[in-house]
């Protein structure tokens, strides 16, 4: 397992009182928990992944995501079991949409 921590500048997201959870920690999948962070223009990401040595890939996927989506003011926690970058991007978008929608 590897633990990775990143911070990205990102446009502030409309704040939600709720947390959002997406996905399941199963083979080739991951879960993403989005909670309110303390810096409005920063997205903090903390990852625990079963696949070692993919730090650069994570950084690239997350940089793209936080540039194309307003994700500032969030703390994102991820538990990963070897999801592909495509699955990661999909789940991130789902989780953020849920967070903005205020759905539980």
């Amino acid at each position, binding site marked *: *397992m590897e633990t990775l921590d990143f911070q990205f500048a990102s446009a502030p997201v409309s704040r939600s009182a709720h947390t959002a959870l997406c996905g399941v*920690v199963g083979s080739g999948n991951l*879960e993403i928990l989005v909670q309110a962070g303390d810096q409005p223009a920063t997205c903090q990401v903390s990852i625990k992944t079963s696949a070692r040595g993919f730090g650069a890939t994570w950084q690239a996927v997350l940089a793209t995501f936080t540039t194309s989506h307003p994700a500032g003011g969030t703390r994102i926690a991820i538990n990963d079991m070897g999801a592909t970058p495509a699955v990661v991007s999909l789940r991130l978008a789902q989780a953020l949409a849920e967070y903005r929608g205020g759905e*539980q």
Partner: protein
Amino acid sequence: MSQALVARKSWFEATARARLGGLLDAGSLQEILPPGEAQPSPHLAALDLPGAFDDGVVIGRATLAGRPVLFAAQEGQFMGGAVGEIHGAKIVGLLRRAVQEKPAAVLFLIDSGGVRLHEANAGLIAISEIMRAVLDARAAGVPVLALVGGSCGAFGGMGIVAKLCSAILISEEGRLALSGPEVIETVAGVEEFDSKDRALVWRVTGGKHRYLMGDCAGLVDDDIAAFRLAASEFLAGWQEAEPSLGELRASQRRLEDRLAAYGALRDGLQVWAALGVAQPESVPMLDRDSLVALKEGLPT
């Protein structure tokens, strides 16, 4: 019928949270210890494995057709729904809460291979605690209803737990047993149990067989809405009885008679024939309604 096909949402394929979303009244779900307030298992982390925020079980309160219920839903996609220390303690806590709050029922969405080997001792003791807590809730008058239809079925200690519940509603895809076919094959050989023979596995452990034998109270289509309907109908007609010597004596007689009658058989086909099913080989092909009609027509 066509309408049902259009609307059908598979229980088997859904996550625990998706099952709950369709099972319970819309907007009523309140999770207890939600992911944002919980920590993944440190035992998995010690073995260098990522955990899940909810440790593979979602618990909380909600309403079902307007009646207050508590629920626990195991996530089969995370570590096979297996019971570790936190996972088990959440379920035990929920069942203890049921004793105090006396909801209309506890809905137990079982999808588990049993003990989580990575936390084997904690898991085994936790399942023992769940067993006693289920019986405590029932003794307090709270029905505990097991819903089985996930990819991991109800195996190992969770198979025992399922059979301690007031009743089990199962889908054809659901499986209920103690040892997994793979374990039996590994220890006793492929001629004893060929775990790759899917049809055989279902004839021995599958929902239709368990329903025909009376081990499960209801057979349900693999559809979240069908589980919702079956659960609310079952609870509307169910009164939890006090545990009694008379009831357990009756259960003892039933089990002894059954063992005497069918103990030497090795395939569902043989048991169904012995039960009086005219064309046992047709059972795997029957849809849910036809199978229920078949069971109701059997000699008792």
